[in-house]
Structure formats: structure tokens, C-alpha cells
């Protein structure tokens, strides 16, 4: 649950980028890191293997500024996508306030996306969290690749997004869709803390 | 039984002594202990090591060289500590009836054997 400090008027939320191996989760954070001015972000902590595969997690704290008089900070995490690392995925997922599911739009990665989404549901359930209660958005990444290699957003929505939540086409390598995705999940996460929002 | 354990037993056998232990001086952790009845060995180790470190600086500052024996008398008992080399400290806790002279001798003996 988001951490709210009424005395100092601060809000801290944990957002986890989830998805299959090599779908572009780390790339999303790297892009955010590169765009946000240094004064508004911390160091990006990446626990990765030599080949840049995420081993434990990436972590990037950013400071949004003041919202309704609360200094609002987001902690962005990525999980390791490789199926081998499920134990560490569960650990990173603990206490998440929102999830960005980064799918790989390539047709040949279709099954990996489905498997990873099922894994997310299982891991949340194991922590006593109903997926339907968890703020989530989808990002269909690598849309810059040739048309014949990637699936369209509508197809991916049909396969993955049964709840009909917000979804975004993206090319995280060049940055398109990264901002929109972060904005989408931010709104959902903060909505839980707002007047007229669903009870937390 | 190791030499250190044997030495600690001898200290504990002195009249009035409630327990003895070997403490790692830089960490304040118990290395070995003997019959610490009703005494929190962990706490004494941490505090005695901290005390010994400060007293060592005080003694150095006053030009006394290194402390050889530290004796702290409380209302109901006494704490004795003797450095054994750079890294270790032999510590004993006794009640008011403790034979302090003999206890000190045993501590010094133990420290010589260990250092």
C-alpha cells in the first residue's frame, strides 16, 4: 500500500514493471532515468548479470513534485523476466502499489507474454492479492520492429488485456510510449488515494 | 577442552565469581564463556569491550601506556577485564564476596596464556 506521511506530507508508491525476459522493462527505466533531471531522481540501481539480463531488480526512485500538497515519489522497480528467477520476482512484487506489464509485441514471443501474465497472477495470488484489485496497465513494446514481426495493439489487447485496462503501444528503446505508460499507471495508483476513488 | 575454556573455568572457580568470558575487543562479541549465571553475557561483552576501548584511549592520553587491568566496582559486585593481545579481552563478573586478588591473578594468567 502506498506510504503516506501526513506530518511531512509525502506519498511514496511502489510501481513494478513486469513481463517476459527481454521485453524491455529495464529499457523503460533507462529511458526514464535519461529524461528526468538529476535533481528529481536517484541513482538507478541495477542488479544484472554480465549480459545485462536483470538478475534481481532494477530500481529507480523519482520525485514527481507536489500533488494536492503532498510531495509525491515513485519507486520504479523491474523484475527479472527469465522464468528461472521466479523467487526473486515474488520478492520484488511484495508491496507493489501498481504493475506495468511490459509485453514483447513480437509474434514469436506471444506465448512468453501469456506465460508471464499467468505467472504474475499466480505470484500476486500467493501474496493474497487479487489481480483485479491491483492497478495495472499494459505496454506493448518494440512496436518499432517491422510490421510483419509484431502484433498490433488490438491483437495483443485481445490476448492479454481481458480486464480492458489502459494499454499503450511503445518503443522503449527510443522512448515513445514510455511517458504515457508511466502516466497511465500513476493515475491508477494515485486514484486509490483520492477523494471519490475506490477504497484502498 | 581448549586452553581458553580451561582458563575461563579456573576464573569461574574463584570464590564469588559468577562468570568469565573471552571477548573479541573490536567487535564486542563473546568468543567463549564459562558459567555466566544470571548475567547477560552478550551485553557485558559489548559494554566491557566499549569501556576497554575508551579507557585505552584515556590511559594513552594520560601517558600511562596501555591498561593492563580494568576493575569496575559497583554497589553489588565487580567487573574485571584484562586485555589479551590486541584483539581479545578476558572479562569476569563477581559479587561482593569475590576474592578479587585471586580473580585478578587468574585473569592475568589467562590473558598471558591466550595472547
Amino acid at each position, binding site marked *: 500500500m502506498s506510504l503516506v506521511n501526513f506530518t511531512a506530507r509525502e506519498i511514496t508508491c511502489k510501481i513494478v514493471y513486469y513481463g517476459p525476459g527481454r521485453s524491455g522493462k529495464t529499457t523503460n527505466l533507462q529511458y526514464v532515468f535519461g529524461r528526468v533531471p538529476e535533481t528529481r531522481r536517484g541513482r538507478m540501481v541495477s542488479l544484472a548479470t554480465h549480459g545485462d539480463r536483470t538478475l534481481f531488480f532494477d530500481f529507480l526512485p523519482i520525485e*514527481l513534485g507536489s500533488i494536492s500538497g503532498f510531495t509525491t515519489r515513485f519507486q520504479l522497480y523491474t523484475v527479472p523476466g527469465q522464468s528461472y528467477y521466479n523467487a526473486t520476482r515474488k520478492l520484488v512484487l511484495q*508491496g507493489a502499489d501498481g504493475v506495468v506489464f511490459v509485453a514483447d509485441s513480437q509474434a514469436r514471443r506471444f506465448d512468453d507474454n501469456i506465460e508471464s501474465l499467468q505467472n504474475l497472477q499466480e505470484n500476486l495470488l500467493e501474496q493474497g492479492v487479487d489481480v483485479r484489485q491491483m492497478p495495472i496497465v499494459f505496454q506493448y513494446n518494440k512496436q518499432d520492429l517491422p510490421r510483419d514481426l509484431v502484433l498490433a495493439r488490438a491483437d495483443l489487447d485481445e490476448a492479454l488485456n481481458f480486464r480492458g485496462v489502459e494499454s499503450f503501444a511503445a518503443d522503449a528503446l527510443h522512448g515513445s510510449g514510455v511517458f504515457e505508460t508511466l502516466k497511465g499507471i500513476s493515475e491508477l495508483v494515485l486514484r486509490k*488515494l483520492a477523494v471519490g476513488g475506490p477504497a484502498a | 577442552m581448549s586452553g581458553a575454556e580451561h582458563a575461563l573455568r579456573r576464573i569461574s572457580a574463584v570464590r564469588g565469581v559468577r562468570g568469565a568470558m573471552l571477548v573479541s575487543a573490536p567487535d564486542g562479541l563473546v568468543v567463549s564463556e564459562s558459567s555466566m549465571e544470571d548475567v547477560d553475557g552478550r551485553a557485558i561483552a559489548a559494554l566491557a569491550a566499549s569501556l576497554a576501548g575508551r579507557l585505552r584511549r584515556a590511559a594513552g592520553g594520560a601517558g600511562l601506556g596501555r591498561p593492563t587491568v580494568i576493575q569496575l566496582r559497583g554497589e553489588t559486585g565487580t567487573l574485571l577485564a584484562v586485555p589479551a593481545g590486541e584483539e581479545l579481552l578476558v572479562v569476569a563478573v563477581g559479587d561482593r564476596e569475590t576474592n578479587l586478588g585471586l580473580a585478578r591473578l587468574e585473569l592475568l594468567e589467562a590473558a598471558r596464556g591466550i595472547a
Partner: protein
Amino acid sequence: MRVLEGWVSGPLSRFLDESAARLVLLMTSSGQVVAQHGFTRSVDVMSAAALGAGIMASTGELAHLMGSPRFGALVHQGTEQGLLLSGFDTPRGRWIGLVAFGPESSVGIVQLFFQQFTDEIAAATPPEEQRGPVLAENFEHELNASLRALFGR
């Protein structure tokens, strides 16, 4: 020293006085900061908390896999500075303390007073406040402005 809730201040300042610790970070198991002393940048605190919680979670899992009970504490003794990482139960779930100390203190001293500190915290924890809405209904406008500014758009 910065604390999220006032009641943590008393026990924390006693711990700092007695242990002579340089840095202290108190966090929840998921890495949210509850209190800290000694850090200058709040974003660095968050990174330290994320890593500390990660280490605790993974060693806990490791202990579980090897069929041993949960580790009480992890100590790293460096040449200049030592670190203690230790979990403890509170009425609000498991919390984690990360303490850095120099030669003016010791592992023994830090562990001793950390134990007292966690006992005090566990005994003093008030029930979680039931909180109402925090943000205004139309917070999106401010959020969007903040995010746009952040991304230079």
C-alpha cells in the same frame, strides 16, 4: 533524523545515543522507509531501503530453501565501516533495520542496543491510522503537469 510517525523518534534517538551508529534506516519488508538518520538525499535513502529489503527477502528465502530458520541478522564488517541488517516483528508486520557503524562503536554494541530499540518499537507501535482520502478528486491535472515537467514536455 527523519521519521514517518512521531512515536518512532524517542526510541530511535535513544538508539543513536547509545549505539553511536552513523546511519540508521528503518523500513518495511517491501522497502518503504519508516525512519532514517544520517542520509542527506531522500532518493539515496530509497535506494538503500530497496537494497536492504531485497537482501533481507532473499536471505530469508535462502534460509527457507535450506531448511534453516530465518536469519536473525546479517553483519558485514568492512575496514572503515560495519553494517548490520536485521529484521524484527512489529504489530504492523515485519520491519527491517539497517545500521552503519564505525570504529567508535562495535557490532556487539550495535546489536545490543538494536535489540532494545526493536523491543521498544514493538511495544510502542500504535495501531495503523484509518486514513481517509489524501488527494483532491481532480488530482490528475497536477499529476500531468508534474509528469510533463519531469519529462521536459
